[in-house]
């Protein structure tokens, strides 16, 4: 590929991203309220799926703690939402998740493979049951009322969080940091011999990925007018982003984005009509995706594209 072709391709991608951003940012002006709410939940899942991939994609550690980080954000927002302005609440939610992830990361990132998976999922259940017990026995009230925020405000905060996340992910990937992370995923021992601080690196990226999940949780908290631990720490929030990312494709940055967008749309479309069939279809797609689409939708598209272009060359 020539240099000229590459710059023109980059310019095209940049233009496309800008166009989508403008269309999204203007959505509340031309779209119905229902569409704005739908877009908000798409942004939410995209944010969680991309944050998950930020850590788990290159390192290969499957973290099932997303629900814990997202829930920490929701709970922070429910506790301090009335006393502080929204931007501060979101920053606080992000910080709480970040600290939680740093703590969990420094405890667990020595654990290998399946132990790490079990620990992270145990964390979600532990927080859920502990807070549930705490609320019943210590404070004597289950659940909290979340201060209401306008739907468009939530939409814009989610959009901003996602843009920040994508920029962060882009810069991490195109820096020495990202290369080091990639090498950790390929071979931890080799990376550490080459002078990469493996554990510190993993902990920091884990924290950054949780930071965005917490921010998303804090800004989405207003979506539920009432929350309790079973809503805030819903285990589905741990599983869904993993599947969405795998379905879309983990390698490119936009893979989880596309996977999450498609799935959330499907969810909104199906869940009101056939709730159980939705989860059933979800499970079937999950199994099929893992069996037949190791590189996700993006990988599949690339393979089909390569095949068809090869055929074109063969014809001429």
């Amino acid at each position, binding site marked *: 590929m020539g240099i000229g072709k590459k710059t023109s391709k980059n310019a095209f991608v940049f233009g496309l991203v800008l166009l989508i951003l403008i269309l999204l940012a203007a959505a509340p002006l031309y779209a119905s309220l229902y569409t704005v709410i739908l877009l908000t939940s798409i942004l939410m899942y995209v944010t969680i799926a991309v944050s998950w991939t930020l850590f788990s994609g290159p390192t*290969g550690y*499957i973290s099932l703690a997303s629900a814990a980080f997202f829930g920490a954000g929701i709970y922070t927002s429910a506790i301090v939402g009335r006393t502080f302005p929204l931007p501060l609440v979101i920053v606080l939610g992000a910080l709480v998740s970040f600290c939680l992830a740093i703590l969990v990361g420094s*405890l*667990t990132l020595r*654990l290998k*493979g*399946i*132990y790490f*998976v*079990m*620990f992270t*999922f*145990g*964390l979600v*259940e*532990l927080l859920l*049951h*502990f807070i*549930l*017990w705490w609320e*019943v*026995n210590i404070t004597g009230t289950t659940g909290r009322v979340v201060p209401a925020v306008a739907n468009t405000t939530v939409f814009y905060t989610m959009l901003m969080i996602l843009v920040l996340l994508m920029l962060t992910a882009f810069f991490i990937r195109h820096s020495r940091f990202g290369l080091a992370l990639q090498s950790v995923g390929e071979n931890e021992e080799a990376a550490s011999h080459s002078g990469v601080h493996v554990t510190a690196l993993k902990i920091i990226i884990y924290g950054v990925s949780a930071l965005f999940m917490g921010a998303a949780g804090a800004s989405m908290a207003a979506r539920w007018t009432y929350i309790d631990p079973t809503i805030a720490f819903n*285990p589905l929030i741990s*599983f869904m982003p*993993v*599947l969405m990312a*795998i379905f879309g494709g983990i390698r490119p940055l936009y893979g989880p984005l596309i996977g999450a967008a498609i799935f959330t749309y499907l969810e909104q479309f199906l869940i009101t009509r056939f709730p*159980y*069939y939705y*989860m*059933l279809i*979800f*499970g*079937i*797609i*999950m*199994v099929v995706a*893992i*069996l037949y689409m190791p590189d996700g939708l993006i990988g599949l598209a690339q393979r089909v594209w390569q095949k068809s272009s090869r055929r074109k060359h063969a014809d001429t």
Partner: protein
Amino acid sequence: MMITILNIVISGLLLGGIYAVTAVGLSLQYGVARVLNVGHGEFIMLGAFITWSCFTLLGINPLLSLVICGPVLFIVGFVLYRTLFTRMRISSPTPGAFEGNSMLACFGLLFIIQNVAILIWGADIKRYSYLAFSVDVWGAKFAANRLITLGFALVICLVFYVFLAGTRLGKAIRAAAQDPDAAGLMGVRINRVLAVCFGLGALMAGLGGALISMCYEIQPTMGLEYTMIALIVIVLGGLGSIPGSLIGGLILGLIGSIVTHIEPGLSLVAYYVIFMVLLLAKPTGILGR
């Protein structure tokens, strides 16, 4: 005082017996077939609902339906392994990749089984009453069905252990657990043995589910909790160790019963704390290699 302690110990054992049966199945699936079956609880749920249907619709004695549940779930597990996991195991580049992928596929299975069950049986809580009279054990009272459950749980675990230790197939399974490739070279039909292991794991889950349905309320979404408890037990006993799962199950039951006696709402919290401390401090468990 003595009565209270006795009470706590016996209720702990009653709880632990059920934990042990369900954990032994998961331990076999992970320890040998290398599939961390997060849908294990769904197989337990299936066992419970099959038993419930047999009892309420056909009037079959729940203890008799152990003989129905077991084989049915064995076939389900065996076929699932042959259709899904054999292919995945061969195409995965490393054993680690297979563990990750198969676990994620099990999440898919979890959703499929759970929602099929909701479509068949509805989402409501179900229960039936079987041998629900109380029996006096040295001054403490226990429901007869729970005592019978403990007896059957111990017998099932014992039979299972003898099967693994004493039969030719059991030997093949233990060989496959140590090194699948070497076992294959020694003439063990490895794909079939691994599928049998996964099937046996499902069978144990089914038996556990049948026992659970005799004492507790059941519903299609009950699976995850039992999966988590089984996971905690196999980590406690050592991943892949069958006697470890039995002992781990009984210990966890005792802990649960003690914590419930002190502070009723905290038993699940205690389980997870133990789980996470174990993962950090001694991930190989009490009987692990």
